Structures are given as structure tokens and as C-alpha cells.
């Protein structure tokens, strides 16, 4: 008898083979995978690889994960625990990939802070936060500590599985931060209190205003230095010039910026026809003046010289991207589209521009528009943010005093073309000062005659100190212009919860991306902005909004009727109490009855309206549920029935 492979000994062997194959493939096939997610959430991006590969000094990353505690979490909390466990294995592998890409510069150490162990003490000391995992009080830790050769540390106290898409960015960000020996320098020239207030030297003084969140955000990667509008030259160690909401700058400052850009310095300019974030100075003699004052900024004549047309008198409104606001009261909400508050998504950002392509959401308030003016010569004008095609240019004057959402809609004339809200200019630019540096008022003060009609004299005084005047770009210049200042304000992109600021939109990332791309480090661009907005049931949301629109007016009307009826009722009843007689006249009684009936009828109508509000969506839900549960089964039963009948007929005939 031939000995078959299917024998008892064979089973033992097979079992061993199975177990060992499982263990071995788990261990050694870790990196081989296909990332099917559209957002590529599980693949290390090129930017991260680049950062890891170019680390100059060794960095150690300690990953603290309480795997022992995690596995023992009771099944009741099982789902969150499963998510944490899955996330933990992903993060561990992601770190291994960083390690592999780093060519030995990055070392990853896995530690398990078991309860009451020294490792746990270390973790807590480093700032890690543990979740209470069971009734005994054991804590689940899942965080990391990265240390560079200088002993500087970056800590992620808890790796939230519900924020999985941010992990790569955060890890790359602090790797870059730990690696950089020097941060590039950004010179910030602004008329707004972006650096926050100074602490008042008085006891019990209120705390100073904090710096704008965007400045702190940028400070993580750059050194941000404040520049004064009185400057006459940009400091030589400034890598990127960041101009925000420039009030008319003196000529010397404009000239300094002009020459800086032509000399190869990069600039990021924010101007605005109407910056809501600006608080015009209050004139006690004329309080209304400040309200009506223009809150605009411009960088003429530089913008014109760079080939860009920008007007402080026009604001872009966009019905397609408008934010819906409540213009009524809480009792009577009236929802309208405020067309100058724009919410931009990926469709408004060009796919092929790495500095914006991965951004998901930008919030703008009353932006202006940019156009090519045709004078730029060989420079290229590349739009970075555009409106939808349902956009209109509106008069900025409408927004002064009290904003009038309905008035804006009245003047709305869509042009059918998308308007450019931000653009980059690259190429050879010409100077806005073709005749050389402007007259220096201080030098004039030395002479008796006004210098305007004798420019040579001024130049003679200056000629030893001034650097060579550039009439055109020395090489190629790069400037990014954004026609909205409000997007930098905290309110437009951050939200506060439990005392912490959280990121609600990509405005900060936009600024950081632009600074990075201008400062010349492309590595981080591929990673930032993979915020992956939650995918929701947009169809249901759309229907709910439509239903709300339809029914809100009706509900308001009914509510008003109801209030009026109830008021009348109370009046009548008070009449009865005021009157000397304790009895009602028949007329009074009849009237009260009438109003009561009206009250009941109105309430019923209100209920109906509210029910109709939900009916559309709930109807769709029920229908979809039925379709999915019964659809195919019924189809199968029909097919089965048909086959049976056919078979019976076939059998009967034979």
C-alpha cells in the first residue's frame, strides 16, 4: 500500500508548516503591501523618505506602546481598542520604513510601559499621556519621543487613532525640526498685531494678546523676525520676505522690497481689499469714521511692476463657495449665503502645483482678485487659488459699516470665469523704480533746496553707500501674492476646544507650504495637507439643507402666528380677570374658544412642517434600507421561482 501524504505525521508537519509560515511572513514580509486607499494613507510619501534620507545627525525615536494592556481591554470597549491596536501596528511599521529610508541615521526603539514599571515612569516623565484602560487603573500608553544628538526632544503624547492621517506629517515635521541646525529666516512685515501684544509692566495687568496661531505655526519651521515699515533695506540673512496687509509703505521701504525681490529674494505678499481682521484706529471725535474707513492694503506700484493687477475697490463674492450664515435671530433664524466668506476645496486649487495640490479646505473672507496686467514681460503668472465660475466682483464699499448680505446678492453679476485669488509670479521682473532709488527725505533735510527738482544731488550723497541699483531681476524672481489677509486670522482656520487650538482648515498649511516652496525645501510639500476630510453622506446633507430652506420660512410664519394667537389668548383671559364679573359673556367665551382652536390648528401645522422637514431624508433612508435588505433576496426568489416553474413544465412535458 502506497504511503499517502495524507497521514497523521503529515498533519503534524502541516500544522508546524502553517504556524511557521504565518510567523515568518508576519516578521519578514512586513513592508510588502498594496495601499488601496485613495488618500494613500498608509504609504510613506516621497517627502518623508527624502527627509529621512537626508538626516544629518542621528535621531532616536522611542515608541511607547502598552501592547500588554491593550490586549487585555475588555471586549465592551473592544472597538476602540481594536482601532488602537491596528493603529499601533501601522505606526510601528511606518517608523520602521522611516528607519529603513534613513540609512542608519534614524533608530527606532519599541518600549512597553507596563504598569508600575520603570519604563512607565520614563514615559510619563517625557510627557506621554496614558488612557485608563481597565478598572484596576492600568494605563494604555501610545506615544513617541524623538531625541536628536543635541538632546532636544519632540514628543507626541498620544497617537490618536482617529487622527491617523496626520501621523506621517507630524513625524516628518519633527524629524525635520530636530535635524535642522538652523532654521531659515522669514522676515515678517505687517501692519497687524500678528506677534501679539507686549506684556504690560503693571501688576495685575491683563495677559498680553497671544501671537496669531499662524505665526506660531510658521515658527516651528522658520525663525520669524519682525521687520519695521521704516526699514531701508531687507536684512541680508532673511530668506523669505513675508508681507501682510501693508499700509502705504514709505518709498524707501518699497524700494528695499523691490530690490530684494529683483536680487533673488523670495516674497510672500498678503494684500486685501477689505480685511475684516483689521481694527481701524478709533477717533474719539468721529467714531463713525473708523467704521467706514477702508480696511485695505496694497503694494502698488510693486504689484503692477510684477505684472499683477489688483484693486482695493473690488471684492470677490462667490455663490458657489459661499458660507451660509444666520442673519436672523436665534428665535427666527434666517439662513443666507454670505457670498464673500468663501470655503475653498480641492477644485479651486490646481492639481499640478505641489504647494497647494494636497490642501483640502481653505477659508477666506472678502478676498480680492488678481489679474495679469500684461506688463510683466517674460514673467509667468500662475494662479494658485481660484474662485468657482459663479463668482462676481463686488464693490468693497458695500462691506464697510455694516455688511449687508442681501445687498451683496442684489449686485451680484457672475462673470462666468473663475477669478484668481492667489498667484505666483516667476521670472525676470522689472523694477518699480526705473529711475533708481527714490529720493531720501533725510538727505533732503540736509540741503536747503527741495530735492525733487535736483535728483542728481541726492544721488551724489547716496552713491557711496547704496548697492548697485537693479532695474531687472538678476536671475529669476519668485513672488507669491495672496489677495486675502483674513485667512491668516485665527478665527478662520482654528477652533478652540478644552483650551487647545485645533486645526479646522488648511490655511496654516497654505502659508507654510508657500514659505517652504519659496525657501526652497520641497521635501515637506508632499506630506502636508493630507488632512483627508471625512467623507460623509453628502447627498443626505444636501437634501437636509434643501428641506430646511423650504420649510424654515414656513415654520417661521407659523411660529409667528402661534405667538400672536397665544398673546391674544392671554389678553382675553386677563380681561376676564380684570373685569368685575366672574363670568364670561357668551361673546368672550366664544372668542376664547376660537383662539384656542386656532392655537391647536397652528401647532398641528407646525408639527406637520417639522415632520415634512425630516420626511424627505428619512424616506430615502428607509427606501435604501429596504432595497439593500430585500432587493437581491427578492430577485433571487423570483429567479428561483422561475427556474422551478420551468423545470416543472419541462418535467410535465417529458
Amino acid at each position, binding site marked *: 500500500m502506497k504511503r499517502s501524504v495524507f497521514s497523521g505525521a503529515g498533519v503534524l508537519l*502541516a500544522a508546524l508548516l502553517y504556524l511557521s509560515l504565518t510567523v515568518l511572513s508576519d516578521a519578514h514580509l512586513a513592508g510588502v503591501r498594496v495601499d*488601496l*486607499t485613495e488618500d494613500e494613507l498608509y504609504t510613506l510619501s516621497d517627502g518623508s523618505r527624502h527627509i529621512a534620507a537626508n538626516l544629518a545627525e542621528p535621531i532616536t525615536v522611542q515608541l511607547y506602546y502598552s501592547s500588554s494592556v491593550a490586549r487585555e481591554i475588555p*471586549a465592551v470597549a473592544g472597538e476602540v481598542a481594536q482601532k488602537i491596536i491596528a493603529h499601533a501596528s501601522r505606526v510601528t511599521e511606518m517608523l520602521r520604513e522611516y528607519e529603513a529610508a534613513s540609512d542608519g541615521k534614524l533608530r527606532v526603539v519599541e518600549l512597553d510601559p507596563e504598569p508600575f514599571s520603570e519604563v512607565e515612569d520614563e514615559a510619563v516623565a517625557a510627557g506621554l499621556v496614558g488612557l485608563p484602560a481597565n478598572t484596576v487603573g492600568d494605563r494604555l500608553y501610545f506615544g513617541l519621543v524623538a531625541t536628536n544628538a543635541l538632546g532636544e526632544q519632540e514628543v507626541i503624547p498620544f497617537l490618536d487613532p482617529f487622527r491617523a492621517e496626520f501621523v506621517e506629517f507630524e513625524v516628518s515635521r519633527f524629524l525635520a525640526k530636530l535635524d535642522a541646525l538652523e532654521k531659515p529666516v522669514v522676515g515678517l512685515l505687517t501692519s497687524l498685531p500678528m506677534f501679539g501684544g507686549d506684556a504690560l509692566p503693571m501688576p495685575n495687568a491683563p495677559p498680553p494678546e497671544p501671537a496669531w496661531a499662524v505665526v506660531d505655526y510658521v515658527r516651528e519651521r522658520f525663525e520669524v523676525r519682525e521687520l519695521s515699515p521704516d526699514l531701508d533695506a531687507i536684512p541680508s540673512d532673511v530668506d523669505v520676505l513675508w508681507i501682510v496687509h501693508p499700509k502705504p509703505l514709505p518709498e524707501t521701504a518699497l524700494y528695499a522690497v523691490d530690490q530684494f525681490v529683483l536680487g533673488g529674494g523670495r516674497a510672500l505678499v498678503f494684500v486685501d481689499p477689505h480685511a475684516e481682521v483689521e481694527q481701524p484706529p478709533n477717533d474719539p471725535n468721529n467714531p463713525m469714521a473708523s467704521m467706514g474707513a477702508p480696511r485695505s492694503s496694497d503694494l502698488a506700484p510693486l504689484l503692477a511692476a510684477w505684472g499683477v493687477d489688483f484693486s482695493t475697490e473690488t471684492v470677490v463674492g462667490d455663490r458657489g463657495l459661499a458660507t451660509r450664515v444666520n442673519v436672523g435671530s436665534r428665535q427666527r433664524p434666517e439662513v443666507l449665503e454670505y457670498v464673500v466668506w468663501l470655503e475653498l476645496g480641492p477644485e479651486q486649487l490646481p492639481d499640478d502645483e505641489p504647494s497647494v495640490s494636497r490642501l483640502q479646505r481653505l477659508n477666506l473672507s472678502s478676498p480680492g482678485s488678481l489679474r495679469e496686467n500684461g506688463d510683466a514681460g517674460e514673467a509667468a503668472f500662475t494662479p494658485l487659488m481660484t474662485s468657482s465660475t459663479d463668482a462676481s466682483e463686488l464693490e468693497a464699499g458695500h462691506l464697510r459699516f455694516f455688511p449687508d448680505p442681501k445687498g451683496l446678492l442684489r449686485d451680484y453679476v457672475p462673470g462666468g470665469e473663475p477669478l484668481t485669488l492667489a498667484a505666483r509670479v516667476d521670472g525676470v521682473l522689472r523694477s518699480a523704480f526705473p529711475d533708481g532709488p527714490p529720493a531720501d527725505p533725510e538727505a533732503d533735510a540736509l540741503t536747503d533746496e527741495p530735492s525733487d527738482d535736483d535728483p542728481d544731488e541726492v544721488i551724489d550723497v547716496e552713491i557711496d553707500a547704496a548697492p548697485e541699483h537693479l532695474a531687472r531681476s538678476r536671475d529669476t524672481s519668485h513672488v507669491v501674492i495672496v489677495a486675502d489677509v483674513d485667512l491668516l486670522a485665527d478665527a478662520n482656520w482654528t477652533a478652540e476646544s478644552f483650551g487647545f487650538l485645533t486645526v479646522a482648515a488648511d490655511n496654516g498649511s497654505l502659508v507654510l507650504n508657500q514659505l517652504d516652496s519659496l525657501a526652497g525645501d520641497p521635501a515637506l510639500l508632499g506630506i502636508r495637507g493630507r488632512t483627508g476630510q471625512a*467623507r460623509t453622506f453628502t*447627498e443626505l446633507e444636501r437634501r437636509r439643507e434643501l428641506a430646511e430652506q423650504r420649510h424654515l420660512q414656513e415654520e417661521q410664519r407659523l411660529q409667528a402666528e402661534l405667538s400672536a394667537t397665544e398673546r391674544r389668548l392671554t389678553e382675553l383671559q386677563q380681561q376676564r380677570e380684570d373685569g368685575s364679573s366672574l363670568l364670561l359673556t357668551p361673546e368672550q367665551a366664544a372668542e376664547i374658544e376660537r383662539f384656542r382652536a386656532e392655537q391647536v390648528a397652528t401647532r398641528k401645522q407646525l408639527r406637520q412642517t417639522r415632520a415634512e422637514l425630516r420626511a424627505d431624508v428619512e424616506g430615502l433612508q428607509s427606501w435604501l434600507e429596504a432595497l439593500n435588505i430585500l432587493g437581491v433576496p427578492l430577485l*433571487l426568489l423570483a429567479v428561483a421561482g422561475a427556474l422551478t416553474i420551468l423545470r416543472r413544465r419541462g418535467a410535465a412535458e417529458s
Partner: protein
Amino acid sequence: MNVVLQIARRELRGYFATPVAWVFLVIFLALAGILTFNQGGFFELNSADLSAFFKYHPWLYMLLVPAISMRLWAEERSSGSIELLMTLPVTLGQAVLGKFLAAWVFLLAALVGTLPMWLTVSYLGEPDHGVILAGYVGSALMAGAYLAVGAAFSALTRNQVVAFVLSLMASLLITLAGWPVVLDAFSGWAPQALVETIASLSFMTRFEAVAQGVFELRDLVFFLTSMAFWLFLNATILQARKAN
């Protein structure tokens, strides 16, 4: 290979001759739908994905796959047709593989019947289709794994009900392999490495990893080797019984 396919085809045709297959499909699809919408809170989650749907697949398979697998071998043994099968010019391996394939294709048909869910979620929002595809691929592999387990137990006994119960128990253990319920039995005395190995044998944990959207080679290897192992066991049991 041709022989295997022939066997598979014959088996598959046989499925639809009886009401059992149709009943199974109807129950599977209806149950999957009910669980997704009622227990899974599909609409309440307001998330354009099928996580509420895939969540229940391990449990669905654990419960329903034995109903299919129990018929693979137990019936043949009690009706005596297994001897007929053995006298035909096919090897044991071919027979095992052929019947398994037929059952697997049948389960895949059941999965295909859930495609309206994918259409529904695409209508309601913009889901990540890659993630859903990964879920379906993972579910198909997992179905095969559960089936292989059931097939082995169905070869063990003549009685289909016994086969059903045994498969169910075994599937339950394997599903919960990563949970404290199972691991506690081992964690007291076994070395940590062994405990972790047992945890890594859980079908559910593997499937959930794949359903996140990342298809790892080692998960594919796991499911394929699981099927291979249990089918090998299946053949061995048949061989042993045949010898008697």
C-alpha cells in the same frame, strides 16, 4: 486542474438544484443588510464607507459558512456516495479541491449579491473605493478560510448537524483568537511568543487590517496557508476514514 474544475462545476450546479442554496443566499443577504443598518448604525455614522457593513462579516461567516460546509462531506458519507466518488478516476486531492472551489465560488456569489451596498454608499457620498475594494477582497479570502475549516469538520462525521456545530465552535475559537477570551487560556503558562502567534491566527484581526485599505502580502499568505492547511486536514481525515 481540469478535473478539479469539472468537479467544481458539477458541484455548483448541484447547489442550485435544491432550495438550500437559495435559502442560504436570501438569509445571508438579508442578515448582512439588517445588521448593517440596524446594529451597525449605517446612517447614524454618517460616514461614506462600508465599515458598518464589513464589521459583521466575520460573524456572518462564522454562523453561516458551516451551513454550506457541512454539506460538503458529511452528506456524501451518510448517503454512501463518497464511495462512488472514490471509485471515479480522481485523486483525493482533486476531489477535496473541487468541492471546496465550488463552495467558495458560491460564497463569492453571495458576496456579489451585496454590491447594492457599494452602489448605495457611492450614491450617498464619495467613498474611498480602494478601501471598499480591499474590504471585499479580504472578505472573499476570509470566506474561503472559514470554508476550509468547515470542510475539515464535515469530513469528520456522518451527521451534518454535528459537522455544523463542530465547525461553528472551531470558527468561533479562531475568530476570537486575538481576544482575551481565548488568549487567557494560554497566557498563564505559554511563552509570550506562542501567545502572540495564536493571536496572529485570528481571521477577524487580519480581515480588519485588510479592510482598512491596505492589502499586505503577509495577510494574503496567511489566508492562503490557512486554507491550504485546513484542506490538507480535510483530505487526511478522508484518507483515514477511507482506510477503515
